[in-house]
């Protein structure tokens, strides 16, 4: 809890500094825009966070997002599927891929890094191949207005991705911090052997986390596709997995597994988005965007290590 509080204070401080330099930070347009981005990035970061809590990693998130975007666009505009069917497909595909990742990790005892690195390459390639490397969009397409408003509309002025993040975050908070499955996730992440000796089906627990990560990647894949409104398969959602890992680590997840919280991951995502926003608003050259992010993540983790060392006897 202390950890989340620390990073939350950092977030508030950043917001305050940015506002004092450029009051446009708190304008409604800017806040709405940022909420939208936090939602888009937060949803898949939560999924990846769960994988990280088991001690694994999922590098395939960005490519999977691109694949989802391509399939979504083609299903609606070229194959003329009804939108609920298209959505179903775009949720089932990444879940199935997540299941495959989980099976390879738990049954074949392969390292998650390798498995999902191959996924990263594979799904990007498949996305480019089925799209013939053409940029896909939704055009003036009809018949899926409902989906468009669910994925990129607003509810009481709040962007839908943010609403989705709140809903999904609440559900996952209960799952991770209150449910049997969540306890198993933490136990497996901390000591897989002891969990197995306690009769926990560790394979199912771990595979489950990859499937959930797949599902959430699908959900944000749809939202991101409608947000960008065009999907260029070669660079759509490129390296998004790294944002998610950074957010999870900032939010208190340990890459060794067994540690992390939903609120932490959400605050971590928010912090990264505020940083990008800050780079824009403060007139820092946008080429420094990544450098700023890298530096802040590094400093954040460093501060945490130092505090932790002091806390030990």
């Amino acid at each position, binding site marked *: 809890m202390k950890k989340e509080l620390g990073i939350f204070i950092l977030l508030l401080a950043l917001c305050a500094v940015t506002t004092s330099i450029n009051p446009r930070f708190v304008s409604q347009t800017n806040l709405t825009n940022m909420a939208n981005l936090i939602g888009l990035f937060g949803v898949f970061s939560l999924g990846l966070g769960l994988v990280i809590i088991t001690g694994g990693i999922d590098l395939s998130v960005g490519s999977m997002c691109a694949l989802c975007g391509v399939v979504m666009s083609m299903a609606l505009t070229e194959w003329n599927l009804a939108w609920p069917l298209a959505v179903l497909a775009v949720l089932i595909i990444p879940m199935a891929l997540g299941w495959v990742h989980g099976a390879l990790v738990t049954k074949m005892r392969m390292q998650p890094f390798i498995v999902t690195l191959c996924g990263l390459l594979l799904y990007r390639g498949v996305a480019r191949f089925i799209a013939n490397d053409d940029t896909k969009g939704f055009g003036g397409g009809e018949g899926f207005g409902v989906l468009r408003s669910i994925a990129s509309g607003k509810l009481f002025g709040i962007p839908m991705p943010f609403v989705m993040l709140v809903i999904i975050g609440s559900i996952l908070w*209960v799952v991770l911090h*209150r*449910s*049997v*499955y969540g*306890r*198993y996730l*933490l*136990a497996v992440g*901390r*000591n897989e*052997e*002891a*969990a*197995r*000796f*306690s*009769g*926990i*089906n560790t394979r199912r627990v771990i595979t489950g986390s990859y499937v959930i990560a797949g599902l959430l990647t699908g959900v944000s894949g749809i939202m991101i596709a409608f947000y960008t409104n065009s999907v260029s398969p070669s660079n759509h959602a490129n390296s998004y997995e790294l944002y998610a890992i950074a957010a999870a680590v900032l939010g208190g997840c340990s890459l060794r597994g*067994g540690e992390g919280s939903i609120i932490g991951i959400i605050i971590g995502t928010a912090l990264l988005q505020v940083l990008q926003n800050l780079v824009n608003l403060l007139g820092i050259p946008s080429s420094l965007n990544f450098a700023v992010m890298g530096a802040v993540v590094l400093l954040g983790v460093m501060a945490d290590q130092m505090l932790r060392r002091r806390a030990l*006897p």
Partner: protein
Amino acid sequence: MDAPILEMRGISKRFPGVVALDRVSLSIAPGEVLALCGENGAGKSTLMKILGGVYRPDEGELLVGGKPVTIENVNDSMALGIGFIHQELNVLDNLDIAANIFLGREPLIAPFQWIDRKKIHADTEPLLKRLGLNIPSTTLLRNLSIAQQQMVEIAKALSQNARIIIMDEPTSSLTLTETDCLLDLIAGLRAEGVSIIYISHRLGEVSRCADRVEVLRDGKNAGGLSRSEIHHDHIVAKMVGREIKSQRVPSEAVKTPGFFKVRNARSSRYPDQCVSFDAARGEILGFAGLVGAGRSEIMKAMVGLDEQGHAEVQLGEKSLVIRHARDSIGNGIFLVPEDRRGEGLVTAMSVRENTTLPSLNSYSTSGIINKDRETAAAKEQIASLRIKTPGAEALVRNLSGGNQQKVAIGKWLAMGPKVLILDEPTRGIDVGAKAEIYKLIRTLANNGAVILIISSDMEEVLHLSDRIAVMHEGRITGVLDEADCNEQNVMQLAVGRPVPAAKPSFGS
């Protein structure tokens, strides 16, 4: 007596809220074997960590060879000729013996700073000979037994010209024969003038090898015993400050023979051997044998923790199909593994979370955990097992070994064990906690559980068991009834020799 090579005078060490050491003094002469005894938490480890450079004392002086010294880190300690053999060995099992011995101080060849392999092997061989270890120095550590790996650590200390070697529970993973070898080796080192500080809970070994015993209690010196005074009861009396009654608790159970039947159990360790045995309800069946006899492996195969393992298990009238640990757990067969921290407990979790982990579903409604019920269950175990912990939310890793073990056992008790398998239940646990755990085990048996105990501690097996099954190289060489349970018979069977009194492993 010679002038002491090492003296610690009035050493105190305080941690937040605890005085770990209160003006403790200790001295050791060249070529002396000093046994350091005391219950867990008495301050032995802290005192030794000060010698090893892990902690710095708040007050007091250290003298080596009569000169005051300060030890700020491990290197200082080594430079003063202090070698440390930890209970958990610090070896790299992917490197060979010579590489381990010279780790961090490899002789190099100019100009490219290559390791001088010839030299390290040439230097290692005589060391191994001196220790009576007949193995080439090119052997990978992973191919050695625990006892041999420990020898390598001793060789490492000797290669650094250690004049004082601290051994922390050196025999806790050794078999009886290996223990004998180690004690002989200690006698040899003593004859060469090496001083040894020997920390052990096994008082039999202490009385065999020590010239002098120093006892710590609650962070203070509780008195010393000279060679002629060393006696099991004297040591225990000083350790606990009171006399402990015999640990033997007689069985009061009404036994149901043949209640638990295991047939053709095979482990991946000994795929060509199979094990069959019967155990009665209310019985404590001990499993003795040398380390590596395959006792733990058979138990793991039996409860579904060995994927290549197999066993036919019958409990009461019911034949069980066990493929995963959850199958045996579902049938009330629980294993408390030897490796508490690696397999028995999630030490980064709280006492509450560990207590409820195997039966979490019974503390939850539609998948959501009821924390109040968990806390109540944890508190119940804390009270009934007298677990010393600040509370149910304390992390298990902050408890002492004995209390961790109580949590590791306690997590199964709420689930009503029908068969409880305890693998080395008192390893590294102090005398007081041992007695409590023995009593608990006997109570469980009296209440109708089948108890299987694996122990390499001869005293423990003899004290606890109603019958003893002895294993040798993957099979049961004989089962001893209570009247025939003695050290002689167990040892004979453990090395694979027949004993007339021994019975076959299950009745006709």
